[in-house]
């Protein structure tokens, strides 16, 4: 069963939970993160494996009913209205949700009452969960439905970078994307007000202009060989139309003069016929050395251009195209045979490739010339671009309409490039570009479940791991219809995580998971923390992102997020940490020998964003750990806590810790604070900007504590070790958050089975990050979708 967490509302029970508002109320709202909504237990279904009367009732009687039973209902909470079969009235749902949260947070029973063993507590949690959110994983087949997703700002920037090599980050001027379920890529939450549409149009115009202006190939020399300039041997054949039909081992060849050493683009226009699933494969060779092999999917009557960028030396060279999986002898009239047709070979260059990732993928302009009409040229230019922009093959009709814009410009007397600019702009404001569309044939039938097609899958993968569009390799696999195969997906996940573009996971997932954005709002008191400035703040953030990225790229255990014994610092941050021997702005990896620091909980970023401007907040730190690491957020504090004020007034000289402890003498307060405070105080050796300290003013820091589970620790190092052993909670919590991010939707009860499975796979895979990602990618919610509506 999935660990539950945030509740939409907490009923009466909260009244008895008086938080130490002095700290708690100052709390910034902290991520609720990936939480799951509730769903009713289907009537008549009985959660498997637990006998209420025998296994559950005795525990309720022993630990709960004294205060929340038939005789007394403290805080208006009654936990005795359960029938013999274990069902309770629907009206009590809220009460049980709250009870579940209290149990998970170890906030109940109160400290001065008999405590259930860990096993007993778990049994109660399991039972309540099963009653509240029962899903039979054998039966369940609901992959959920992702709402159409608009590209968010990060995705937009990355996508135009990869699509057109535009690196001026146009989306930085867009309004912020709203956040839901802890992340800013949630389809339901991403809206599109007129202001944004205006920005899209402006940005699209600028991007189109720069893409066409910066076209490095536009001015490069271009030589095409066709017809009689091309030669073949005996076995391949040429038609009068100028088309060659190839036989294996008898390539069509043209001679080209390469003006100097430099970058060149080799191009071939080809089409195929294929009787089966295997595509015709064309190999381009330069002086008999293979340059690239293409799957030629285009049909003979709609030939397409296939091209590869290479570096070549000056001189006369032979470019040839061979049909490497074709027949060696061409049958005379065999329509069932695989066939490959070539119209021409072309070399463009030399040219200076633009810098930036996938620079070779800029818009490749094919100009109208010698016999190529404006219409054909526009189409040839736009087809590959639109396919990449829409992340699926462009339809004929879509191309026709875009070509129409180019023709319109021509009729007005504008240049071909101007027309293309209009068409490219239209593509960039099209809903098929701005939204990630997963179109259904039965969109309103919740039972219409289907696997994603390979292009949709490529898109989900790339936006999950790179926050950007698919690259050529993903597109090629999708076009071949191979991507959905499990071994292929596994391989792609491995490849993609190793790619530098997976830095996007750090910037977009990790930064939100760990609430790093809240650093922006932190302004430590300059009188107390003179060394703190914007630069240090940026360094703190960078450290955590680099650390996360190292776990991703080196495929380390996710448990290292908790206790990793290395980090990344530059001189400024090293000084902040008291580390010596690091010079300069550059970040580098350092091993952590000091016992105190390990994992993200001891990063200055996390320690600062969970502090108040003037001092630490153990409550915030504890709450942060419970929410983001353990996945068991404590209940929300009530808005006003008069009792706290009394504590403070009565003991004005008390230290922070003494005040909290005094306050917790009130059992009602203790219930909520036991876990939070203990966790937070374990990190008191770190001040409000994350520096190590032994004392707070005159008072020596006491970082020891006892968790509600009974585990004791003397300081941060021991606490980190204890936390690291909470593998199940950490796994589930991270899995739920990463799945939310991957899907771009809030999780529902039906996703619990997927989370179970992912957590299991993660454990089986030694907690390696790739095991987590792979399990998510292979999960049903990621690979499947269904129509909209409530599942019957």
């Amino acid at each position, binding site marked *: 069963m999935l660990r539950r967490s945030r509740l*939409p*509302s*907490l009923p009466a029970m*909260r009244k008895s939970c008086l938080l130490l*508002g002095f700290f708690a109320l100052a709390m910034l*709202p902290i*991520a*609720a*993160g990936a939480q799951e909504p509730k769903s009713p237990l289907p009537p008549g279904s009985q959660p498997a494996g637990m006998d209420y009367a025998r296994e559950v009732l005795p525990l309720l009687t022993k630990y709960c009913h004294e205060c929340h039973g038939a005789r007394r209902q403290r805080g208006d909470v009654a936990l005795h209205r359960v029938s013999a079969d274990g069902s309770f009235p629907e009206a009590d749902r809220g009460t049980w949700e709250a009870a579940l949260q209290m149990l998970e947070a170890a906030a109940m029973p109160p400290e001065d009452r008999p405590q259930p063993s860990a096993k007993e507590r778990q049994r109660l949690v399991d039972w309540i969960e099963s009653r509240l959110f029962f899903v039979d994983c054998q039966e369940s087949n609901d992959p959920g439905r992702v*709402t*159409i997703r608009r590209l968010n700002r990060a995705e937009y920037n990355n996508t135009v970078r990869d699509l057109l090599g535009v690196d001026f980050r146009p989306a930085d001027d867009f*309004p*912020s994307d*709203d*956040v839901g*379920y*802890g992340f800013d890529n949630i389809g*339901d*939450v991403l*809206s*599109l*007000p*007129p*202001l*944004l*549409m*205006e920005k899209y*149009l402006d940005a699209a115009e600028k991007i189109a202009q720069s893409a066409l202006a910066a076209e490095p190939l536009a001015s490069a020399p271009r030589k095409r060989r066709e017809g009689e300039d091309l030669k073949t041997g005996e076995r391949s054949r040429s038609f009068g139309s100028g088309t060659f039909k190839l036989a294996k081992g008898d390539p069509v060849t043209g001679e080209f003069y390469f003006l100097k050493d430099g970058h060149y683009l080799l191009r071939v226009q080809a089409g195929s016929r294929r009787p089966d699933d295997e595509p015709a494969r064309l190999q381009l060779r330069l002086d008999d050395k293979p340059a690239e092999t293409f799957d030629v999917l285009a049909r003979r009557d709609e030939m397409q251009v296939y091209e590869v960028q290479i570096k070549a030396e000056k001189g006369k060279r032979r470019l040839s195209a061979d049909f490497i999986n074709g027949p060696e002898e061409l049958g005379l009239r065999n329509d069932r045979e695989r066939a490959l047709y070539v119209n021409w070979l072309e070399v463009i260059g030399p040219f200076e490739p633009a810098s930036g990732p996938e620079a070779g993928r800029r818009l490749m302009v094919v100009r109208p010339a010698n016999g190529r009409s404006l219409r054909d040229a526009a189409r040839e230019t736009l087809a590959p671009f639109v396919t990449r922009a829409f992340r699926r093959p462009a339809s004929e009709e*879509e191309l026709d*309409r*875009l070509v129409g*814009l180019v023709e*319109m410009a021509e009729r007005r007397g504008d240049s071909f490039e101007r027309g293309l600019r209009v068409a490219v*702009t*239209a593509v960039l404001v099209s*809903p*098929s570009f701005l939204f990630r*569309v997963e*179109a*259904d*044939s039965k969109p309103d039938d919740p039972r219409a479940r289907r696997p994603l097609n390979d292009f949709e899958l490529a898109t989900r993968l790339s936006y999950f791991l790179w926050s950007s569009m698919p690259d050529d390799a993903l597109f090629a696999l999708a076009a071949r219809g191979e991507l959905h195969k499990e071994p292929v997906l596994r391989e792609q996940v491995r490849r993609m995580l190793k790619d530098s573009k997976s830095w996007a996971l750090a910037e977009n997932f990790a930064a*939100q998971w760990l*609430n790093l*954005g*809240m650093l922006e*709002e932190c*302004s430590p*008191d300059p*009188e107390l923390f003179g060394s703190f400035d914007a630069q240090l703040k940026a360094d703190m953030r960078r450290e955590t992102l680099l650390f996360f990225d190292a776990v991703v790229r080196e495929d380390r255990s996710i448990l290292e997020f908790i206790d990793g014994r290395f980090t990344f610092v530059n001189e400024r941050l090293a000084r902040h940490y008291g580390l010596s021997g690091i010079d300069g702005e550059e970040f580098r990896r350092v091993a952590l020998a000091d016992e105190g620091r390990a994992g993200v909980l001891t990063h200055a970023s996390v320690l600062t964003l969970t502090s108040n*401007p*003037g001092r630490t907040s153990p409550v915030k730190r504890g709450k942060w750990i419970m929410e983001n690491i353990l996945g068991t957020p404590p209940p929300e*504090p009530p808005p*006003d806590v*008069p009792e*706290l*004020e009394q504590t403070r007034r009565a003991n004005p000289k008390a230290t922070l810790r003494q005040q909290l402890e005094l306050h917790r003498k009130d059992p009602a307060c203790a219930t909520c604070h036991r876990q939070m405070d203990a966790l937070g105080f374990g990190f008191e050796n770190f001040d409000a900007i994350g520096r190590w300290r032994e004392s707070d003013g005159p008072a020596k820091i006491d970082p020891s504590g006892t968790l509600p589970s009974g585990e004791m620790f003397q300081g941060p190092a021991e606490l980190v070790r204890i936390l690291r052993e909470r593998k199940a909670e950490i796994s589930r919590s991270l899995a739920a958050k990463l799945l939310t991010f991957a899907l771009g*939707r*809030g999780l529902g009860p039906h996703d619990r089975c997927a989370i179970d499975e992912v957590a299991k796979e993660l454990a089986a895979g030694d907690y390696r990050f790739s095991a987590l990602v792979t399990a998510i990618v292979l999960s049903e919610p990621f690979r499947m979708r269904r129509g*909209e*509506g409530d599942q019957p």
Partner: protein
Amino acid sequence: MNDLFWQRRTLLKGVGTALALPWLESLVPASLRAAEAAAGPPRRMAFVFFPNGAIMDAWRPQGEGRDYRLGPTMEALVPLKSDLILFSGLAQDNGRAKGDGPGDHARSASTFLTGAHPVKTAGSNIRVGVSADQAAAAQIGDRTKLPSLELGIERGRTAGSCDSGYSCAYSSCISWKTATTPMAKEIDPKLVFDRLFGSATDAERGRAERDLYRQSILDLVAEDAQRLKGQLGQTDRRKVDEYFTSVRELEQRIERARHESAKARPELAVPDRVPPDLREHVRLMFDLLVLAFQTDTTRIATFMLANEGSNRSYRMVDVNSGHHELSHHRNDEDKVAALARIDKFLVGEFAYFLERMKTVREGQGTLLDQSMIVYGGSLSDGNRHRHDDLPIILAGRGGGTIVTGRHIRYKEETPLNNLFVSMLDRMGAPVEQLGDSTGPLKELES
């Protein structure tokens, strides 16, 4: 030119800009001059929002009716006293939990102009209600280049949830086009300026040609959107409808611009980025708002001085702690004093804005006389998250339909939306009901 203007100019130099004189009669579009002659100048409305409640003891005026004294927070408004109405007793009842538990800050911003109860959700079904400004924009927005203008100082939060399980949209937007579409706000003065008057490059590029192509592009993608809808489920269709509506709005704007003679671009020099100094930033936004009204580029605006629940510090008035954190002051004297300084600072900036509105002559009076500017928040006591007896000021005479210079005390729990309904009447955009309104406030007239 008045003194304030020149002070402002000097101030701007600090961020590397020079400000040329924008206040020219030629800036006023011919359509407006003609309309002015016929029916008098149009009316404008703006809503300026501040978060986290106020220290009400320092806010509240003493006395009622015409005979009242402004509270200490209002010091900067003393010279403008005759242009204001101060209200007591107005409430935004739907800001209360009503069984939804914590989240008063999210509910504060989202109810402020809607008077509707927001659905507690982190995402999947965001819903509150149409806001007062958008109720006006829907009816009269087509008369100006921009139907409405949404300004802010802070971006929406991009990490974590904003308040106890409420989507961040609730805390960072006060303007709602529909119950489910929040209007994003602009925080960058440069971008606001470009939006109002076009970027410098526009002029060179030949706007007519660009607009022609824009029309064709928008036509094409609007058609794309319609086709797409057939393959989408209900929620997706709603998203694409949102897209479609935004495209249409843009098209209409281009269409309107075609009939307007090219307007001179005011030469207000605006820095290239968001000024790091808060006061500078706020004043620039107010300047732009004045310009937008003066040139009749829009008649409806909202401005969030900070997002609800904002925890920023206000160093210029010696407040180093976070605003939200402080707002739970539990009557700690130092904290209350710090909060009162924040309140006073923000009111001071609002006074700057009103002064600017007053310097613009229009018809027989000033731009402020033609306007109705609400300043306020949807929390009174931030410590206890109270949603009644809200701090609300109305400035301007609504084209002579409002008698100012008074403090009006209403019966407890009088819906704040009643004020908005009264304003919508005066804007020529009447609604029968808005949110939980029960009828107009008759006392505005006398």
